[in-house]
C-alpha cells in the first residue's frame, strides 16, 4: 500500500506573510468562535482535489493548542480512516538517532586549504557520542575536533518541524471538493474591559466597553470571520476555578438582578458579539474591539464598611468607597454587560483622568444594580469599640458596640456600617440612629458624618441561638 502525503495548507503554513496571500482567495475561509473561557471553535473551509485511493492529508498551520480529540474532518466523497496528531519534533539528536543503521555522508574541510573531502559512513550508535563505520574502520564522530559536517539524505517522515495534524482518508474516485475542518483550541480567549470615567460632582459616569481578544495559541489567523460568545460555557473546572467562582459569588457587587432585555444577538443562553469585518488575529496579539459607549450613566458614590464580629480595634479602619449605578435604560445605559473588569477613572484638578480602582463584574443582565468597589477612602475611617458584653443566658449574649466615624473630607458624607457576626436569634435592642435589617445575618446603619468631623453610632444587639 502506498500512502502519498499531500500537503494541505489550511492557514498560515509557516508564516503570516504566505498566509496573507493564500487567504486572499475567496473560496478559503476561516471562522473563529471564541468563548470567554479560554476556548475557541475553529473552522477551516478549503477546496481539496485528491486522486482516488488511500492517502494522507496533512494540515500545517492549525492552532498549536488544538484539542486533538475534538477534530472533525468532513469532505464529500472522502472517507476518513484515521486521524493523527504528531508531536515528534525534529531535533538534531533525533535525526541522528533515526539514522542508526543507515548511511550518512561526512564532509571534512581541510583547515589550511578549505578543500572538502566526502566520505560515506554508517551510523552504528548514538548513545553518549556517535560511533561510525567508515569503510572498514570504526570512528567516533569528531573526536579530533576537526570540522566535520554530517549530511543526511532524507529527514524521517514522522519527524516534524511543528506539531502536525494529519488524516488518513480514502477516496473512491478522484475528488475536487470543499473540505471542512473543525476543532476546539485553547489559547484564544476574550473578556470585556470597561473604562468608566466617574464624575462624582455631577453624579454621572461614562462607560466604554471593549472586547479584549488575546491569542496565545502559537498560531496567527489571517482574515478570519470572528464572533465572540458571552456566557458561562460549562467546562470541567479546576479547584482553583471553583474557588474563584465561590469568592466572586460571596463578594458580589451586584445588588439587584436586572430583568431588561437588550438588543444584542443571542445564541441559546449566550450573547454573541460578532466582529463586523474580517480580522487578522496574530499570535501574541491583544486585539480590542469596542462594543459599548455610554456617555452619561447615573452613578453615585457611597461609603460602606462591614464588621464580622463584636470587637474593639485601636486602629481606625478605612471605609470602602463604591460607585453605584444601574445598567438600565432609564439610567442611561440599557445594555447587558458581559463579564469583565471595570477600570474606574476620576479627573484630577487639571481635568486629566486618573485611575482610581478596578472591580470585576459577572455577566450582568440589563437593568441590574451594581456597586463597584473603587478602593478605601483615605479620609473616612471607622473605629469599632466593644463597650460591654453581658451574658444573659448560656445561649444569649448582649453586645454594646460603638463605632466612631471620622471624616477629614470637606463635605458631609454618609457611611453605611454593616454588622455581621449574628447567630440565629438576633435583634437590635437599642440604637442611636434607626438602622435596618439587611438579611438574616446582618444589620445596617447609615451614619451621617459632618465635614471634617466625627459621628458615633452605638447600638446593643442581643445575639443567641
Amino acid at each position: 500500500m502506498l500512502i502519498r502525503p499531500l500537503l494541505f495548507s489550511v492557514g498560515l503554513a509557516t508564516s503570516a506573510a504566505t498566509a496573507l496571500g493564500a487567504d486572499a482567495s475567496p473560496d478559503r475561509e476561516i471562522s473563529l468562535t471564541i468563548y470567554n473561557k479560554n476556548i475557541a471553535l475553529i473552522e477551516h473551509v478549503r477546496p481539496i482535489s485528491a486522486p482516488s485511493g488511500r492517502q494522507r492529508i496533512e494540515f500545517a498551520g492549525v492552532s498549536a493548542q488544538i484539542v486533538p480529540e475534538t477534530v472533525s474532518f468532513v469532505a464529500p466523497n472522502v472517507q476518513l480512516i484515521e486521524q493523527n496528531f504528531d508531536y515528534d519534533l525534529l531535533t538534531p539528536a533525533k535525526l541522528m538517532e533515526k539514522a542508526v543503521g543507515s548511511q550518512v555522508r561526512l564532509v571534512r574541510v581541510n583547515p589550511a586549504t578549505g578543500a572538502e573531502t566526502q566520505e560515506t559512513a554508517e551510523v552504528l550508535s548514538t548513545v553518549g557520542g556517535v560511533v561510525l563505520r567508515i569503510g572498514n574502520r570504526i570512528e567516533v564522530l569528531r573526536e579530533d575536533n576537526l570540522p566535520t559536517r554530517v549530511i543526511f539524505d532524507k529527514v524521517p517522515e514522522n519527524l516534524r518541524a511543528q506539531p502536525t495534524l494529519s488524516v488518513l482518508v480514502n477516496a473512491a474516485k478522484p475528488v475536487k471538493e470543499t473540505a471542512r475542518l473543525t476543532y476546539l483550541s485553547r489559547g484564544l480567549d476574550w473578556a470585556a474591559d470597561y473604562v468608566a470615567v466617574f464624575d462624582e460632582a455631577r453624579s454621572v459616569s461614562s462607560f466604554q466597553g471593549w472586547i479584549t481578544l488575546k491569542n496565545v495559541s502559537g498560531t496567527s489567523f489571517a482574515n478570519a470571520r470572528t464572533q465572540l460568545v458571552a456566557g458561562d460555557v460549562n467546562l470541567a473546572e479546576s479547584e482553583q476555578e471553583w474557588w474563584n467562582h465561590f469568592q466572586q459569588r460571596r463578594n458580589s457587587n451586584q445588588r439587584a438582578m436586572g430583568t431588561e432585555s437588550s438588543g444584542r444577538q443571542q445564541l441559546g443562553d449566550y450573547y454573541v458579539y460578532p466582529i463586523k469585518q474580517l480580522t487578522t488575529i496574530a499570535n501574541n496579539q491583544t486585539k480590542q474591539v469596542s462594543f459599548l459607549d455610554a456617555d452619561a450613566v447615573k452613578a453615585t458614590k457611597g461609603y460602606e464598611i462591614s464588621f464580622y464580629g463584636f470587637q474593639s480595634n485601636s486602629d481606625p479602619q478605612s471605609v470602602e468607597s463604591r460607585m453605584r449605578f444601574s445598567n438600565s435604560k432609564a439610567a442611561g445605559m440599557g445594555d447587558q454587560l458581559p463579564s469583565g473588569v471595570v477600570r474606574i477613572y476620576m479627573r484630577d484638578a487639571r481635568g486629566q483622568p486618573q485611575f482610581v480602582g478596578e472591580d470585576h463584574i459577572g455577566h450582568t443582565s440589563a437593568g441590574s444594580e451594581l456597586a463597584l468597589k473603587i478602593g478605601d477612602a483615605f479620609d473616612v475611617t471607622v473605629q469599632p469599640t466593644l463597650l460591654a458584653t453581658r451574658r444573659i443566658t448560656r445561649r444569649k449574649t448582649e453586645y454594646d458596640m460603638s463605632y466612631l466615624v471620622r471624616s477629614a473630607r470637606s463635605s458631609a458624607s454618609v457611611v453605611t456600617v454593616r454588622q455581621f457576626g449574628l447567630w440565629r436569634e438576633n435583634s437590635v435592642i437599642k440604637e442611636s440612629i434607626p438602622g435596618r435589617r439587611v438579611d438574616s445575618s446582618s444589620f445596617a446603619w447609615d451614619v451621617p458624618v459632618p465635614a471634617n468631623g466625627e459621628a458615633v453610632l452605638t447600638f446593643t444587639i442581643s445575639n443567641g441561638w
Partner: protein
Amino acid sequence: MRGKSLLVLLLLAGATVRAQQIEVVSPQPDNVSVTIYRDLFALVTETRTVDLPEGPVTVSFEGVVETLLPASAVATDIGRPLAERNFDYDALTPNNLLARSIGKGVTIMRTLPGSGKVAQVRATVVAANDAGITLRTDQGNEVLHCSGLPEHLTFDEIPGDLHARPKLSIQLAAGQPGKRTIRLSYLARGFAWKAAYVAHLNNTGNRMDLTAWITLQNLTQASFRGAQVQVVAGKLHLLAEENRGTSLTGDSDDYYDESSMDEAREEARQRLASELEPKDPTLQLFSGCYALPIPPEREDRHFEEMREIIVTGFRASAAAMEMKRDAMGIVQAVREELGDYQLYRLPLPTDLNARQTKQAVFLVKPRVKVERFYRFDYDVRWDRSPERTTPESMITFENRKASGLGEPLPAGLVRAFEIHGDREVFLGEASMRDKPVNLPVELGVSKAMDLGLEIDAPSPEVEEVRELKLQDRVDVEVRAFNGKSKPVTLEFRQPIEDDSVTSNSTDLFRRKDGKLVWRLRVPANGTYVLNYRVDWPLPPMDPSN
C-alpha cells in the same frame, strides 16, 4: 554592520504587510504624564499629534512602555470611529525569527578556518526549535552549528508579525483628514513609590520637625523626558493578574492587614526589578548537537552578529540610562484630592529615566507638638506566668492644625532622631499606616532603655475560686523600674475581656479603644508598683434549660 541592514529589512517588511491599509506612525509623544501608584504600576497619559489621511488608517504608537497592560489602553480625542485596537508583542528574538523561518530560504555563512574566507550556501530551514536547527541544502540535510566550523545564518527578511518593540496600534475608519492631537493612556507595570518621614525631636522631647519624602522608582527600560509626574496615596481596589486585573500581589481584598500587603509589594517589587533588568540576550538554541561539544569561545563568535539584531531595541534605552544621572534634583510636591485619595504632583516637568529613583519632599512641618511616653500592652487572659519585660518607647501626636500638623499622612516609615547635647542620635523607626487629618498617631520607635517591668499575676487555688462563685480570678502586680535620672510616663494597657471585672486598682484607670489604660509616673531612679484584680464571674444559668 549586519544589525543595521537587518533593521532596514524589518521596516520594509512592516511596510509590505500593511500594504492594504495606510499606516501612520507616531514615533513619540509630545507630552507625557506619569502617575505612580503604590501597587507597582503607573498610569501613563500621552498626547501625540498625528496627520491623518482621509481614508481608513492604522495609527501606530511607537515608544510605549513595554510593560503596558493592553486591556487598559484608551485612546481619546480621535474624532473618528475606531474599528479596533491592537497590541502586538511577538517580539523579534532569534528564537522567534528562526521559528518563523521554517520552510523559508536562508543563507549559511561558513568561515573557512585556514583562509578566513566565507563560503555562502543557500538552504531551507526544515526545523528550528530549542534543540537545534535542521537545514536542507543541495547536498542533503544537516544541522547548523554541529559541524565544528564557524557558521551562522543570514535571513532574507523578517516576518511581518515580529516586532522589535511592542507596538500599540489603532485602526480608524475614514474621516476628516488633517492634524489631530490624540490622547493615549495606559497602565504599565514597573513603577513604585513610597512615603518616608524624618522626625527631628527637640531636647525636651515635646516638639518635632517633620519632613516627608516621596521616593519614586522607575524599574522599566522606558525614559520619559519632561514628564509631568505625580503619585497617588490610596488603597485602590485591585484584582489579581490571574483575574485579569492590574495587581501583581493578588486581589487587594485578600489582604486583611497592611503590613502583609507591604511585604507582598516589596517582594513583587524586587522580583519585577530583576525581571525588567536588561538581559544578556544569549541564545539558548544550539545545545542539542549530537556530536562532541563545540569549544565555547568559538561558539560565542558565531552569535555575535545575531546578537546585534536584538540588541538594537535595547540600545536606545541604554544610552538614555547614561544620560542625566544627576537628575535627582529635589522639589516639593503639591497635594490635591483625587476622589477619595491624595495625589501629590511634582510641580515642574522632570525627566524620569529608565531604572531611576527620584525623591521629592512633600511636607515640611516644623515644631509639631508631640508626646513621648512608654507603653506596655498586657493580655491578662493569656500571659499569666511571671515575666520581666521592657516597654516600648512611643512618640505620639495628633494630626491636627492645633498641633502644628493637620495634613494627610500617607503610610510610610518614620525615622526619629533626637538631639543629645549638640549631637543627633537615631532613636529608631516605626512604620505608620495612612493617617488622615484629625487622627491620633502612635509610633513605637524602640524598646525602652533603663526601664523595666516585672509582672506577677497569681491566681488563687481552684477551690477558693469555686467558693467565691467565680470562674477565675487573678491579682496583678506590676513593678516598674526606672534607671533614668528623670521621671518617665508609662502607659500600661490591658484589653477588655468578655465579662471580666477589674477592681481594687491602686491607681486610676480609664477605658480607651477597648482597653483599660493606666497612666503611671515612674520616679527617676526609682520604682513604681501597681496592683489590681480581675475577676471572671460564672456564666449565667440558661433559664430555657
